[in-house]
């Protein structure tokens, strides 16, 4: 700006124009600040008594439960945890720019590939020092889940929950059903329920992720845990006969699923189980959130997805695990490490579970005496598992699962014919996605 002469600045009284200029500048700054702060954390300078924490726990129940954990920590250590909570979907969508900007010291995240991805990109701090103290609190499966591809620890698990087939005890009693343990029993039960005018399997796939769970269950029952891992990692081919067999089995039970699934949310599908119109529902234990009446919740029970291949039995459990990670250059690393150590104790988990009984502790040391029967069962199921999986969108690349698998499985659910062309399309798209970076 060559016109910026001294004379321009020598007028003492603010004219209308300078006012306007000032206002324009202020408006510009005002518009800029929220944009910048939207991607950053709460951004206060490093107060030695404060650790900042970015949280995706925006729903009422988990939010309160997490707050209780931090309050317990404050009481114990005198350190304040400054929580920056964002809507959980937004948090997940913005995680990329969030971690590259000025993230909080510690943030909530998922175990599995989704954690390893950011660890591999150098956006998280390895926390082997934390694990030296807390390793004894966790079973081996949890330890494995907390490591990055480089063998270092990046994650502290807090809680987990299994996926299973949920049903109402009273309904099973009324019709004299028995819990099926094999595929044939399962199909026979579906047939019987249909005769009894029940919807055998409640289903809602509007959000596109529930179908991923059905695929996972049939896949590791039929082909085993190792094949699940290879397939998710992009190593095994989707045109493999093994994958085809999963879809064949799925097509066999698809007629027993609730109609019009692609237009229904999981909450609406859960309501059909609540109202005893449906016999079973394959979902995570969070389905219990829809059972608002305590008596109904009491009546809720679940069983593991039936065995398909006896070689694998029911040895794998899908148990998504949530916990914490440390961002790449935390402002208060010393206290951040101490907080992570606390979060890895049974004490922290018990504080969480007291307020959110729909999940179970990731640690085997946590006190299980206060568990509801449902939690006890979930705990036993996970503790007895030979292998734990996370979920398709946590075990594989999120871009692959969201842009390829979700629409593909919606298509299959709606119209199970034409599996072959669907699978070759998935395989072609998978190759290009996994080839890039």
């Amino acid at each position, binding site marked *: *700006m060559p*016109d*910026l*002469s001294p*004379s*321009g600045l020598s007028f003492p009284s603010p004219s209308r*124009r300078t006012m306007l*200029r000032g206002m*324009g500048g202020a408006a510009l700054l005002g518009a800029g600040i929220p944009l910048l702060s939207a991607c950053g954390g709460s951004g206060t300078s490093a107060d030695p008594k404060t650790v900042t924490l970015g949280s995706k726990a925006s729903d009422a129940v988990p939010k309160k439960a997490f707050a209780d954990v931090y309050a317990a920590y404050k009481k114990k250590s005198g350190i304040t945890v400054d929580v920056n909570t964002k809507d959980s979907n937004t948090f*997940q*969508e913005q*995680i*990329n*720019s969030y971690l*590259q900007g000025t993230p909080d010291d510690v943030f909530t995240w998922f175990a599995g590939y*989704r954690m390893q*991805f950011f660890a591999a*990109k150098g*956006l998280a701090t390895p926390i082997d020092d934390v694990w030296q103290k807390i390793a004894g609190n966790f079973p081996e499966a949890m330890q494995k889940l907390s490591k990055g591809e480089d063998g270092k620890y990046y994650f502290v698990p807090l809680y987990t929950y299994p996926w299973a087939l949920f049903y109402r005890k009273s309904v099973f009693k009324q019709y004299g059903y028995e819990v099926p343990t094999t595929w044939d029993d399962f199909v026979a039960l579906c047939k019987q329920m249909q005769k009894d005018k029940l*919807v055998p399997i409640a289903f809602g*796939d*509007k*959000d*596109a992720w529930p179908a991923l769970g059905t695929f996972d269950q049939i896949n590791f029952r039929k082909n085993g845990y190792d094949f699940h891992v290879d397939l998710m990692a992009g190593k095994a081919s989707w045109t493999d006969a093994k994958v085809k067999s999963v879809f064949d089995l799925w097509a066999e039970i698809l007629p027993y699923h*609730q*109609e*019009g*699934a*692609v*237009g*229904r949310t999981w909450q*609406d599908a859960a*309501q*059909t189980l609540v109202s005893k119109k449906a016999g079973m529902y394959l979902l995570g234990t969070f389905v219990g959130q829809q059972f608002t009446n305590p008596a109904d919740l009491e009546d809720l029970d679940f069983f593991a997805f039936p065995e398909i291949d006896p070689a694998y039995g029911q040895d794998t459990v899908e148990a998504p695990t949530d916990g914490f990670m440390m961002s790449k250059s935390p402002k208060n690393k010393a206290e951040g490490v101490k907080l992570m150590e606390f979060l890895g104790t049974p004490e922290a988990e018990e504080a969480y579970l007291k307020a959110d009984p729909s999940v179970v502790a990731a640690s085997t040391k946590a006190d299980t005496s206060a568990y509801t029967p449902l939690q006890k069962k979930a705990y036993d199921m996970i503790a007895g598992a030979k292998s734990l999986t996370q979920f398709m969108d946590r075990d594989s*690349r*999120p*871009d692959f699962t*969201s*842009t390829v698998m979700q*629409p*593909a499985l*919606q*298509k299959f659910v*709606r119209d199970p014919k034409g599996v072959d062309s669907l699978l070759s*399309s998935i395989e*072609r*798209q998978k190759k*290009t*996605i996994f080839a*890039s*970076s």
Partner: protein
Amino acid sequence: MTTETTEEIPEAAAVPPAGTAPAKKKVPHGHRRLLTRRDRFTLALMAGLPTLLHIALVWVTAFASIALAFTTWDGIGFDSIKWVGLQNFKELFEQNPQFWPAVQHNVIWFVVLIAIPTPLGLFLAVQLDKKIRFSRVYQTAFFLPVVMSMAVIGFVWQLIYNPDTGLINSVIGANEPGKYIDWIGDPDLNLWAILIAASWRHTGYMMILYLAGLKGVDPSLREASSLDGANEWQTFKNVIFPTLRPTNTVVLVVTIIEALRAFDLVFVFNKGAEGTELLSILVTNNIIGESSRIGYGSAIAVVLLLISLVVIIPYLVSTFRKERRA
């Protein structure tokens, strides 16, 4: 597109300060210039700032996304950008099962908006222009959907179409096993279901545009045609409609824009599941989110840009031609 043309103005305005600079050298002393130094500074600031913002936010970003369309990038660090040439486009045209349906749906969106809500809006405008009683009330009622955010409209209609508890299925009793009508999930139905919601809003929009156009029609024209013994339909067809030509152009442009930028309604409705894929939704799905495919998403955005250009360029050419003639 309208923003494009209005944004051109600051750029044009930015030229004069530069042009006056040589004049300053030629007339160093003597008579006072029309603009003081402060005026010119203010002018430069007022024209320069929008120009800079325009360049930074429109042109730089547009060219950046065109460049990114030939790369793969996960959005983490600039060193992870890799040049892949036409790979993204090849993949898009040959492998993406959602791409061609998306293009088709954008076209259907435009055709439906032009074919149904536009004439309906014109019809309503003509009726309301007759100074009937409660005209203002009707105007407000029809225009209300336009004021509402698309996200809200999507949410409201999604409740109406909800297959289990929604208004429609409950009324016609189609929410029981065996009689199910899946308005949201069935790809043969969902696009049309959403288009009804879109038309509901678009009709009000068109009505207001035509109403404004009709207010500008010279009353003496009507008088003359009625003196000539023309009936109402003949007057409309031969006298009124031809004078609405400028409004029709605006309507066409607005409808094209609506068809190309259709996004929020569908995203809230069913996130662009099979049957309702749109280009804008594919862009978002690929770019926003964890480990995003920014290069691939940009390639889709470039296709969308090209389609817009194909529509916009003939319009601009004809407008400029008309201006030159005038």
